[in-house]
């Protein structure tokens, strides 16, 4: 139990003392998660929209596949990405292994199904009258997408926040693709794994708190977007 208390104290120390390894990990985490969130939202919103808005043959199967992709283990994604960007992989020449870019690619694959599946289910809940209204007001295809997404903005926000939580806390990809290299690809979660492995539970807790703090700040700023 006491290591939890110690962890709280340590969390403050780490942040206040400006411990450079902590801060570079914070920085790496922010960079990589922002990047992967942007990519997965960019790809997930349109895909989710198409899947939720239109009725077409095979839609149900696509949904099942997407839902299954929600259960892609991070280590698995990590291995698959590794296979592609390792020196002997088809993309080996780009030198993405042990880089933040590599991690971001993997995390995008992780977050994409979350964004897409939740967007689709939110869009599905849209009133049929909205679709009719938009068409009769002369909305083009792009207007329909943007307006529908805006109508269900709180649902989309929930999708994004869920995906963000997933990306922020994932270890498997960062470890496998990033290599947990100090000052380079060490993110907060891989640092937590490392400290915990060393038996430094208090440090693990402290870093966990730092991560939660980041999430809290992000969610606090998002909560201003959300009306009462």
């Amino acid at each position: 139990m006491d290591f939890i208390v110690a962890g709280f104290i340590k969390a403050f120390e780490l942040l206040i003392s400006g411990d450079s390894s902590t801060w570079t990990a914070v920085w790496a985490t922010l960079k990589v998660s922002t990047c992967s969130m942007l990519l997965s939202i960019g790809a997930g919103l349109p895909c989710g929209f198409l899947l939720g808005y239109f009725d077409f043959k095979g839609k149900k199967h696509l949904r099942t596949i997407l839902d299954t992709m929600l259960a892609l283990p991070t280590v698995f994604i990590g291995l698959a990405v590794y296979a592609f960007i390792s020196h002997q992989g088809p993309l080996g020449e780009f030198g993405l292994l042990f880089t933040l870019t590599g991690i971001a690619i993997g995390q995008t694959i992780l977050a994409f199904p979350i964004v897409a599946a939740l967007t689709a289910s939110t869009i599905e809940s849209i009133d049929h009258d909205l679709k009719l209204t938009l068409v009769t007001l002369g909305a083009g295809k792009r207007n329909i997408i943007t307006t529908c997404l805006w109508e269900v903005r709180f649902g989309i926000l929930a999708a994004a926040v869920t995906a963000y939580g997933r990306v922020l806390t994932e270890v498997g990809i960062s470890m496998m693709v990033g290599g947990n290299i100090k000052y380079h690809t060490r993110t907060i979660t891989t640092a937590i794994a490392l400290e915990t492995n060393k038996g430094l539970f208090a440090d693990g807790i402290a870093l966990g708190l730092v991560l939660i703090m980041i999430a809290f700040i992000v969610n606090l700023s998002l909560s201003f977007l959300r009306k009462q």
Partner: protein
Amino acid sequence: AGSKGLMMATTTSTDNTGLLDYLIPHFEKQTNISLKWTATGTGKALKLGQNCDVDVLLVHAPPAEKKYIANGYGKDRREVMYNDFVIIGPENDPAGIKGKSISDALSAVKNEQAVFMSRGDDSGTNKKEKLLWKNAGIQLPDKEKWYVQTGQGMLATINVAQERNGYTMTDRGTYIKYQSQKDGNAPLKILVEGDSILLNQYSVLTLDPKNCANAKYDLALKFSDWMASQNAQNLIKDFRLLGQKLFIPNAK
């Protein structure tokens, strides 16, 4: 195998003990070569080398290393240091193994069906442990109830042993760490130590340029040389964790 500097794969023990954090800045300063490392299980470290994703390895599994070279993945193997393994267990020692030889101790564990933790992760440590069972003439008790395979790192395994009041085999470095975390009165004590079979040899392995043309073989060799240099060997000798010596340099 990035553009500048060396990329090394190593086992968790060298990283977790802080040895690399202590040693590498010296290397970088003296040779002007930058070195990054990723710490993983021995098996994965070897695999990363085989796939040419790193330039050099620092590992501790001599039989596997020799096979690795034989397979054409590794080129030079240079032994640089060692530490040793010990068998630890609860102070009341239910199987009564204290002071026994390795083989007797393991037989006692088996006969008493005392709980024994194995890392079961094919790491250097695990490989050594399996060898010990074999030497004691006992078939690996894979499915026995008292033989618990944690599939985790050394410290986690020690913690499991402590929770379950069992025995385990560990490298001394990790044990020292564990001990320090318990403020010197750890529930698990060293019960068997000192046998020459318990030595834990670390080596630097360079990769065979034939297999990995992109690997920085020359820089890797420099690292290997440096580790064997008097300077580095002295540094290793002076490295202490919580006041105790951890690694004994033995480069030839």
